[in-house]
């Protein structure tokens, strides 16, 4: 069956119908667990599980609405995801009065400009805006605050946050810019492939970890990550990625290989951001998404996998 037999919107409809089906099953399982296992007692794991499933319904609904509304809506949605992630990141990062202007530049100039450049498809500039221009201009702005206390640390932390929360995440909607022969008008499907693969990896790591997990991977960084969770999660979602080959320009084994790559990267994305959380003495980045924590808790894996996925596709398929 060729991908071109269906229109893009038809394909997306099929995928979202599939996701909805999975969520129905998950909600049903959550309901059964709550009724059977708790036996009147409150079990925090099951309460959290149900909160997570409910939050997934909301997140999938928002994504579906954005996809239905089109490319611009998807770009705007990710601009807001970046905004919230950057808020959470800067809120727990040490800055001083002298960084006030640099922070204003981050939120009100570089963030919107990055997404606007993606909107107009200017690859040459959006791919260097933050690594080059923000990298040089932000510390200049901070020196004008005339405060040298912990200067390098402050400048580095602001730049790092901008890279992770804005630059890296913006590579999700940047997939819309790619011009792939025989795939015109279907780039939203690349976003679906990326998000579904990486997010399902997070979900399956959680599921396998809760079911079989015993060997802690690195308790000093993340107490909930286990070896069984990692292997089971990455393998299962690699299978999910391979099974989604028909919505991509890849063959099934290419899809599997790419899924494996972005899943491993996604895992380490969560790992790196956990290390930062431990260092700052916090458990979650925020409270925005019930059961999951903050926005950055949900998108940490995506921010690590999106730029690599973007460049894999750009290098070999355009």
């Amino acid at each position, binding site marked *: 069956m060729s991908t071109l037999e269906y229109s893009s919107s038809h394909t997306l409809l099929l995928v979202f119908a599939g996701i909805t089906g999975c969520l129905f099953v998950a909600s049903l399982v959550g309901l059964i667990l709550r009724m059977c296992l708790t036996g009147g007692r409150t079990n925090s794991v099951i309460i959290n599980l149900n909160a997570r499933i409910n939050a997934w319904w909301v997140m999938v609904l928002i994504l579906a609405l954005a996809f239905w509304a089109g490319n611009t809506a998807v770009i705007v949605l990710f601009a807001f995801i970046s905004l919230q992630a950057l*808020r*959470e990141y*800067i809120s727990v990062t040490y800055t001083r*009065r002298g960084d*006030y202007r640099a*922070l*204003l530049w981050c939120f*009100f100039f570089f963030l919107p400009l990055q997404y606007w450049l993606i909107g107009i498809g200017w690859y040459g500039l959006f791919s260097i805006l933050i690594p080059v221009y923000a990298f040089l201009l932000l510390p200049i702005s901070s020196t004008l605050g005339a405060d040298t206390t912990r200067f390098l640390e402050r400048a580095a932390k602001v730049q790092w946050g901008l890279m992770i929360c804005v630059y890296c995440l913006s590579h999700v909607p940047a997939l819309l810019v790619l011009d792939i022969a025989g795939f015109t008008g279907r780039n939203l499907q690349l976003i679906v492939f990326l998000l579904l693969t990486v997010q399902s990896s997070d979900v399956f790591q959680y599921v396998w970890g809760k079911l079989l997990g015993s060997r802690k991977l690195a308790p000093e960084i993340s107490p909930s990550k286990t070896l069984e969770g990692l292997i089971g999660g990455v393998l299962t979602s690699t299978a999910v990625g391979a099974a989604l080959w028909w919505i991509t320009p890849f063959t099934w084994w290419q899809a599997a290989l790419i899924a494996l790559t972005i899943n491993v990267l996604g895992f380490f994305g969560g790992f790196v951001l956990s290390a930062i959380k431990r260092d700052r*003495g916090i458990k979650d980045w*925020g409270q925005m998404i019930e059961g999951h924590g903050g926005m950055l808790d949900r998108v940490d894996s995506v921010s690590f996998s999106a730029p690599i996925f973007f460049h894999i596709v750009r290098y070999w398929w355009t």
Partner: protein
Amino acid sequence: MFEKTLASIFCAIIRILTGARAVWRGTQPETRAQIYYANHRSHGDFILIWAILPPALRAVTRPVAGADYWLAGWLRRYLIERVFRGVLIDRHVKRGDDPIGAMLGPLEAGESLIVFPEGTRNQGDGILPFKPGIHHLAEKRPDTEFIPVWIENLGRAMPKGGILVVPLLCTVTIGTPVTLEPGERRADFLSRCQDALLVLEPSE
């Protein structure tokens, strides 16, 4: 009625802008006369504390604010007098002024106060040494609980001299109440109050 609606709108706006979250770590909300004292880095500080209080508490809690700033211009005057129901204190005390008396009035009527004992907005880390005002209040009403309130991030979001607001997420942490002990010296009481506030500051 109109002013109450306006106050609710203000609180809603600031809660959305700052993502404000209250963490009642050392005590629970109570409607009897108490004194909330907080670190001061932004003009928005008292509105933020006000916004995170449960509505029943907000109705009986009044911010103590500097008259020089808030009486300049009709809009500020209207907001502080009618909407926020502030207790205005002249920071440059002249002969005949009675700032302590002005604060005791609402306390005796059963209302709570929000005070900033540093006296001015701090532009650095930590806190500035406290002014003796809260000790005077404690001597006049020794049974009053002084509740430390640490405001995190608002000073970074809208600092002194800043015009735009950096959209950071603010947290308001309410600590363990301090009361004056019999015969306690002023310096000891003030330093106890400062310590009770500083333990709420997130570690760096």
